[in-house]
């Protein structure tokens, strides 16, 4: 008689821990059961992200870059599982390379996006690119790994914490991604991954007053975008619309705040 395999129970990734959905609901993709995130899971994830933001943004940019690079290492070590959850090895290569690309940004953002400003008076005046806070990500589900991962890597590179709503099709990939995140030295709460249908949870996330920005999938239909943007308006939440496969500085720049500091110069 052959040995029974020990199967993995899929869970949400909130505050650095793997937890079941508060609702107890699950859904099935390719015969496998995944937790279906509820409104309260969104609430818990945002709370965790607020704490994660404090820890993540307090690291030096160099340190954040290293953690992101380690995320690439952890993902590379899980390529087989990732391939199984997405379109195949090419997508995994693109994703890992993208994380490496973003890993190089944290300690360069301010040099590229900031400035020293020549004001007409005896003042030192400079502008730095600062982390924005907690970003809610409505992740594109196509391609299934690249969608959530591209968006998340850019947001993390900006020094932000994220709550990622990974749609049903992304659930298998998201589970592996969460394990990569959990082993990458990312502070607890900096990245939170919720799986399940996003029809309701996206609205809860968009309207949440404790998120600073919302990253919307350009592939979503216009009516849904309009609804989410209306909800986000309540908290003057920034809304960025980005494509699934985009890799650019703009993806990070949409999630930084520019802070300008003045100080007099005099003897």
């Amino acid at each position, binding site marked *: 008689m052959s040995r029974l395999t020990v199967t993995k129970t899929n869970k949400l990734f909130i505050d650095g821990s793997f937890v079941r959905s508060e609702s107890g609901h699950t859904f099935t993709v390719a015969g496998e059961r995944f937790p279906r995130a509820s409104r309260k899971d969104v609430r818990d994830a945002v709370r965790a992200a607020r704490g994660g933001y404090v820890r993540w943004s307090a690291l030096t940019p160099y340190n954040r870059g290293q953690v992101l690079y380690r995320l690439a290492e952890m993902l590379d070590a899980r390529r087989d599982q990732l391939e199984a959850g997405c379109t195949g090895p090419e997508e995994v290569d693109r994703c890992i390379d993208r994380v490496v690309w973003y890993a190089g940004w944290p300690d360069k953002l301010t040099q590229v996006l900031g400035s020293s400003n020549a004001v007409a008076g*005896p*003042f030192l005046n400079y502008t730095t690119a600062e982390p924005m806070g907690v970003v809610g990500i409505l992740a594109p589900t196509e391609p299934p790994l690249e969608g959530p991962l591209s968006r998340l890597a850019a947001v993390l590179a900006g020094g932000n914490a994220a709550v990622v709503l990974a749609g049903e099709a992304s659930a298998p990939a998201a589970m592996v991604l969460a394990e990569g995140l959990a082993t990458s030295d990312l502070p607890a709460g900096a990245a939170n991954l919720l799986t399940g249908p996003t029809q309701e949870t996206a609205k809860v996330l968009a309207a949440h007053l404790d998120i600073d920005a919302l990253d919307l999938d350009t592939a979503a239909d216009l009516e849904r975008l309009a609804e989410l943007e209306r909800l986000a308006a309540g908290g003057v939440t920034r809304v960025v619309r980005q494509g699934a496969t985009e890799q650019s500085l703009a993806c990070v720049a949409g999630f930084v705040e520019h802070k300008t500091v003045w100080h*007099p*110069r*005099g*003897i």
Partner: protein
Amino acid sequence: MTAVNGIAGSGAELAPREGTAAAWTLTEAHRAYRHLASQSVDPVGLEQRAAVLASRSVKTVAKDHALRTAISLLDLTTLEGSDTPGKVRIVSARAVRPDPGDPSVPSVAAVCVYPSLVAEVAAALRGSSVKVASVATGFPAGQVPLETKLREVEYAVAAGADEIDMVLNRGALLAGRYTEVIDEIQQIKAACDGRHLKVILETGELGGYEMIRRASLMAIAGGADFIKTSTGKLPRAATPPVVLTMLEAVRDVRDETGQRIGVKAAGGVRSAKQAIALLVLVVETLDPSWLTPDLFRIGASSLLNDLLMQVRRRDSGVYQSPEGFPVD
């Protein structure tokens, strides 16, 4: 206003002890200095405040009043190697009646000369309200022994000086020998024998506003009745931010102890406009009661004519020519 407590050495200890001429012990002076001088000065903010006050518009009747006030606060000064008895007699005569044709123009506050001419000036001013002021203590550099400084003060007092303008020991100050600075002022104060003591900080040599504030407080701790900006021998002397710094030090001392210390702005004040701007600084930093000769002076040699020109321009409505006013 009540003194603020909670910091060691603040408040009442600054008050002179009753019945003692040299009211300050070194320890108390030091404490006073350390407490108030620990507050720093931001130069940019200070200069900005001074600039805003300099933009005050003083027109019509306010200007009439300001011009006459400025004249009444003048220390008419001549401090040249070429000063003679004849020259200081002319200056004294103008001090008593700056404009013989206009009785509404007040006398100035004092005539300020070198010690060797004090007797001459005292004689010329006898019977008037104008005080005799003498620079002393090795003016302007002050680089003479303390003994010499004390003898010079005693000489000027004996010759009839009402007020002594001593120079602060900048050498000791910049070398960090603060005790020596305060101690020297105390000794000179004693030598003044009750005459008013003005301590000249020579702000242009102090390197910044913070040191001007500290020097102001040291001078006050040492017993100065007045603190004075400059000798007039250096450029950039009684600028508005410098005077503002000193006025703020005086205000802080008043708020903590109730003591009323005078300020004398001297050096580079040549126009009526500058003089009026100084009065604005006093009024908006302290209050109008400070605009008496007991508490505010402007030391100048050429300013008087511009003030008189402005008075006559206001009275006649016609712009004046300098030729209409005497050259001293």
